[in-house]
């Protein structure tokens, strides 16, 4: 029995974590080179970004120039290491070959790594057209629905009303479950637009969903400050500091989230 449970657990992990194509899709008459290229590209040998790994993807592309997965994977280390000039042509090729699979991903990467807000909005607009109003899906790191990302782009471009409408529309979408940071960002927008009561309600919702963020308490403190409630301000700001010093805040190994706060921000308010 314990071996069966081990098998089920490991297979489940594999299903959740892999984003690789099913190479059997290429197993059609006359398409053996693409099947072999897919097997090579998904073989997983070599550390990401190593010459060995990159050569593997390049070989797969030579064997099958339409293997979009290989272009996308070859692009990844350039993205993570800040080489935008090398990243972009590779991901563009993947998008050209399979826009439904890779356009949302490119949009997210432009937002997360480059803060290319206009570019992200362009890509998301194209994605809307491709999906004909159906769900365009989530950013690749699983933190955001792409419509919330769209809202954050509007915010960054100074279009805060549109940002609020966009995020609220996504939250109201049938069958949608709010993600970890949705209400945090909506609350910050409400606070920035001068509606501290609505902001506090959003931060409370955020805490209900994910009580692991110093940011929720920090911004709630600022909203209480605007309402002229110093006791609630201090209580929440101190809670923010406690959480922050225990590493309970938004975090990502590659970049910083929107509305990210730092210890210096908290301490400035507690002086």
């Amino acid at each position, binding site marked *: 029995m314990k071996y069966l449970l*081990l098998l089920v657990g490991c297979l489940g992990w594999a299903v959740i974590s892999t*984003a690789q194509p099913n190479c059997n899709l290429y197993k059609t008459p006359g398409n053996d080179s693409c099947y072999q290229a897919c097997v090579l590209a998904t073989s997983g040998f070599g550390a990401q970004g*190593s010459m*060995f790994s990159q050569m593997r993807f390049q070989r797969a592309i030579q064997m099958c120039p339409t293997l979009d997965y290989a272009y996308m994977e070859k692009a990844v280390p350039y993205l993570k290491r800040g080489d935008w000039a090398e990243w972009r042509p590779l991901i563009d090729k993947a998008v050209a070959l399979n826009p439904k699979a890779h356009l949302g991903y490119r949009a997210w990467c432009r937002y997360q790594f480059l803060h290319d807000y206009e570019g992200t909005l362009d890509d998301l607009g194209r994605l809307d057209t491709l999906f004909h109003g159906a769900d365009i899906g989530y950013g690749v790191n699983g933190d955001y629905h792409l419509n919330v990302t769209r809202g954050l782009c509007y915010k960054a471009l100074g279009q805060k009303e549109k940002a609020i409408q966009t995020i609220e529309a996504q939250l109201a979408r049938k069958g949608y479950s709010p993600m970890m940071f949705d209400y945090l960002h909506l609350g910050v927008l409400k606070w920035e637009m001068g509606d501290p009561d609505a902001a506090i309600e959003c931060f409370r919702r955020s805490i209900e969903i994910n009580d692991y963020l110093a940011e929720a308490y920090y911004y709630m403190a600022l909203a209480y400050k605007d309402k002229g409630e110093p006791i609630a301000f201090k209580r929440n700001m101190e809670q923010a500091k406690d959480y922050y010093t225990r590493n309970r805040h938004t975090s990502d*190994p590659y970049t910083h989230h929107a509305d990210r706060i730092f210890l210096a921000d908290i301490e400035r308010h507690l002086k």
Partner: protein
Amino acid sequence: MTQYAKPIVLFLALASLGQGCRSALDRKETAQAPLLRHVGDTAFDPKLDDPNFKVCNPERAQQYYAFDGLRYEGEKPKIEAHFRNRFKNKPKKGESGWLTIRFVVNCEGQTGWFRVKGVDKLYQPKKFDASIEQQLLALTKTLNGWMVGLNDAGQAFDYYQYLTFKLEDGRLLEILP
């Protein structure tokens, strides 16, 4: 069937773990190969680099994200203040895009091997105006709060770090990551 069940289950379990580890976008670096064998690797250039800067163990250099992100004393606000207080915006039409400076933080927290690469708003390679590039490079070199990259066992590693400066007509808009 019973005598084969255990080895089959163990084999499938190990194969599945391997499959899980190959998730392209979240696997950690395990840079076992020497420098020059990875995307973004840099080699000492006597024309550009300080000969006194030493990479402690070139064969095991990591990337900044192996240590859970940008690590600087005072965090990102300190970096932003460094540039905000010193960078002189020189408005110049067309000087827009992203200028990236990539460098090594060694096992003692010192920095070196700075390399500059720019792209325009269409992600095409771009050589930014010398006054902008030189300012940003000089200011990056004077950042002195980089934290040492430590693994869970407390071993110090060299790591590659980059800063990307988002520019619009010569004005510095944002610093990434």
